[in-house]
């Protein structure tokens, strides 16, 4: 492994990973790739069946026809979430065929993907470039993966594909409904998940595209969120997903009085600071606290006769309620978190599918995130310079993916409602274990014991000068957390870099070392 260098946020990162040169983070907006986007090879329509029927007998047959071989990159999307019955099977087949050293490029991974660990162990998979969830994170952090993990945001994944940094050899895309030509959508069928927004870069840029469906419908399958003209083969299976697990487990407003209290403080801050206003663009995630904030905001909008102009998904039943009760004009959606949201996309004309492509990508001519007024996000840790972590916990283990988190940091007002400590672990630290988002982009930290405004936001500090809300400095919050919990010991790591964290522009913002055991 090449030697480590210090990047613009003071983190030690490698300059070469998995045999590829990488660029250390240079600072916000400093990295501007030039040239042309990557393009897939030229295909010719005369090589495809004239009757349009691309259905083959099995996924194995399709993979073989696509020329599956050692070292290829296989991509999947995560719209079936923890109910995904397709991804693991790809690697079982590859193993059976004796294929080695694959790269798996999921748009996110879930606990249900734990079985791929055996294929990481037996050499079928060299590495994962995507998110490291639960058991996968543990496996990687303990230094057991052959290659080095690459963690990217949703937007960063699109950027990497467009830059040609990652070349998808075969995209295996599960589709809740498809016709024989490969026109596919996620609105109908037993595994309906609403949208397939995260698969758009995959089908546009992959060499080969396989659609796997459990709901083959007559041609033409409309709307065609994935267009058949990009598809090589269609595979029909019994089941692509477990419906109750496709729906995210987190779309309930929290019952915890402590979290509700944080949500209430956040909402008060939004209103008092003028961030919450008529016509605002907002995103609130699907976590229990975020949903509670969304619900409080809904009440305020109702009372004041205001409206949010645009709500950005992942959508939930609570957002749908706002749409239906008229406090939200449009929902733009790259993923639907619950069944109510899935149904709403099919029935409400102002609930639009909006590929992640349009929302988050560094290489588009502008994108949605910078237009957002209210951006509610989470974090596992925040440091005294407002830098934040979402991928690892304070014990050093990778546990979560980045998701759209880094991309969303570009919003006008980024608010992190987080507890000051979890059990005994302070959330506000001198230094984050892994730096995933630079503090310059994080505006407000709301904890149950006080609110800290980033000193860069002089406008907000001035506005809130006479507020009765518990406004404190981030240092005060850190001290308070340590006073209650004690000062945690620094975690010990070994030299070996087990994962790198990409920034949205493709540079390396931090690296994760093997944990010392």
């Amino acid at each position, binding site marked *: 492994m090449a030697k480590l260098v210090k990047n613009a946020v003071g983190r030690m990162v490698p300059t070469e990973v998995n045999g590829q040169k990488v660029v250390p983070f240079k600072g916000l907006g400093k990295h501007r790739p030039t040239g042309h986007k990557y393009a897939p090879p030229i295909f010719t329509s005369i090589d495809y069946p004239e009757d349009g029927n691309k259905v083959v007998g099995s996924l194995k047959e399709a993979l073989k026809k696509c020329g599956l071989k050692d070292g290829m990159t296989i991509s999947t999307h995560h719209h079936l979430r923890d109910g995904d019955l397709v991804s693991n099977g790809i690697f079982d087949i590859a193993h059976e065929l004796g294929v080695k050293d694959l790269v798996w490029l999921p748009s996110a991974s879930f606990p249900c993907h734990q079985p791929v660990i055996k294929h990481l162990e037996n050499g079928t998979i060299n590495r994962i470039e995507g998110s490291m969830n639960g058991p996968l994170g543990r496996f990687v952090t303990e230094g057991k993966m052959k290659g080095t993990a690459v963690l990217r945001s949703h937007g960063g994944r699109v950027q990497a594909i467009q830059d040609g940094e990652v070349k998808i050899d075969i995209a295996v895309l599960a589709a809740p409904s498809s016709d024989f030509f490969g026109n596919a959508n996620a609105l109908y069928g037993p595994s309906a998940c609403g949208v397939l927004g995260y698969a758009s870069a995959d089908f546009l840029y992959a060499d080969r595209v396989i659609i796997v469906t459990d709901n083959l419908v007559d041609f033409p399958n409309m709307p065609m969120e994935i267009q058949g003209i990009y598809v090589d083969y269609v595979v029909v299976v019994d089941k692509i997903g477990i419906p109750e697990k496709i729906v995210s487990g987190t779309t309930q407003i929290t019952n915890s*009085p*402590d979290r*509700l*209290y944080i949500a209430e403080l956040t909402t008060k801050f939004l209103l008092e600071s003028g961030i919450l206003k008529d016509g605002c663009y907002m995103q609130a995630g699907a976590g229990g606290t975020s949903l509670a904030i969304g619900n409080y905001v809904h009440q305020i909008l109702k009372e004041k006769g205001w409206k949010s102009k645009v709500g950005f998904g992942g959508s939930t039943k609570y957002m749908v309620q706002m749409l239906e009760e008229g406090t939200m004009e449009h929902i733009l959606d790259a993923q639907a978190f619950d069944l109510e949201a899935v149904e709403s996309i099919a029935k409400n004309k102002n609930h639009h599918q909006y590929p992640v492509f349009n929302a988050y990508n560094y290489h588009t001519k502008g994108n949605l995130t910078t237009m957002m007024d209210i951006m509610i996000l989470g974090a596992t840790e925040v440091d005294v310079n407002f830098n934040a972590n979402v991928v690892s916990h*304070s*014990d*050093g283990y990778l546990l979560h993916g980045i998701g759209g988190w880094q991309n969303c940091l570009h919003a006008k007002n980024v608010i992190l409602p987080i507890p000051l400590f*979890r*059990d*005994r*672990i302070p959330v506000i630290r001198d230094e984050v274990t892994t730096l995933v988002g630079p503090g310059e982009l994080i505006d407000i930290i709301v904890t*149950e*014991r006080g609110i800290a405004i980033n000193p860069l936001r002089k406008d907000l500090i001035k506005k809130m000068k006479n507020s009765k809300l518990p406004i404190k400095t981030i240092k005060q919050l850190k001290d308070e957390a340590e006073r*209650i*919990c*004690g000062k*945690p*010991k620094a*975690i010990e790591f070994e030299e070996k870099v087990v994962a790198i964290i990409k920034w949205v522009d493709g540079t390396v913002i931090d690296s994760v070392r093997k944990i010392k055991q």
Partner: protein
Amino acid sequence: MKKTAEAGNYGKDVSSDCRVTLEITKTGGIKTEVISKVQALFGDNIKKLCTDILKYFGIKNAKLRIEDGGALEYVIAARVEAAVKSLIKTDKEYLPPVIPENKFETEKDRFRRSRLYLPGNTPKLAINAGLHSSDGIILDLEDSVSPAKKFEAAILVRNTLRAVNFYGGERMVRINQLPAGLKDLEYCVPHNVNMILVPKCESADQIKQVNTKIKALNKAKRKIWLMPIIESALGVINSYEIAVSENVVALAIGLEDYSADIGAQRTNEGAESFYARAMLVNSAKAAKIQAIDSVFSDVSDMEALMQNVLRSKGLGFDGMGCIHPRQIKVIHDGYAPSAQEIDKAKKIVDAFITATEKGLGVVSLGTKMIDPPIVKRAEKTIKLAVNLGLITENWREEI
């Protein structure tokens, strides 16, 4: 003598607590085994703390196993101490420092609209309890603690009183029914408690016993108020003599036990307890102290709670108990003065200030003379209204 002891709680659903298993051995020094959810960050720290405590109690040879679900230091210390004291006899106490925020005393007639019950042996609920702004927080040693856990709970409550910030909430402990409750006083009186709740109180003599014990323990001579809880037919009959006892600033009613005592079912409408509640309010008011209503046990039904609060306020109660933080806001809203009450209070207080400014001895509003207690009550209403943000501090300029 016992060789091994256990204290605390540990399991999948338990957080912020730990289970300590202690065995005193003959040789081999102190051996500590730590299994912790926060091992990487605090494992060494926990080990050192446990060793320090054992040394403090003069234990030189022991095997200590701690299974920790993210307990704070004051909790771990309480659990280790409880285990130690189950094995050896000692008068020593391993006390966490009293945080400066906990050194305040409270006034006799401060607001006591809401008081949040916390099971005394469940540390997770205590840490953030003060954030929800109830007027008081009760660490309960009585009904919410099983008999086997009473001892460790008393030590935990003592440490909680010293180490946990309740952000201005009045710091209360409900001791056990006498005579056991008298022993509980040792764990709270020297540790900055503001008020003792005396359950199942039936006579002035019981209050006298409590006062005597408090006096003996209260070396710092801090103000420690009493709130007897009347939970029986006899208690209701004797409520006045209880109310006028020394240090009693409020009288509470416990309706579950009372209903059982008179052989009735407790209903939401509360016809069965109407006499008791009216009597209790009357006794309290005759003694010029506060009357506090029972808890409302359905934590999911906020509408029924509100009706209950309004009924309670209508009978003359000044506050009630809560068993969930969600109830606090509803209770505060319910006991808040109405617009009409505020309006009247404004006029009275304004007349009083004007009269004082003019040097008049007598306050009058229109043709009516106003007595000092009425002014005082009006001032209290105004203070409450300002606190609740119903009027501003400069309300006089807006008249």
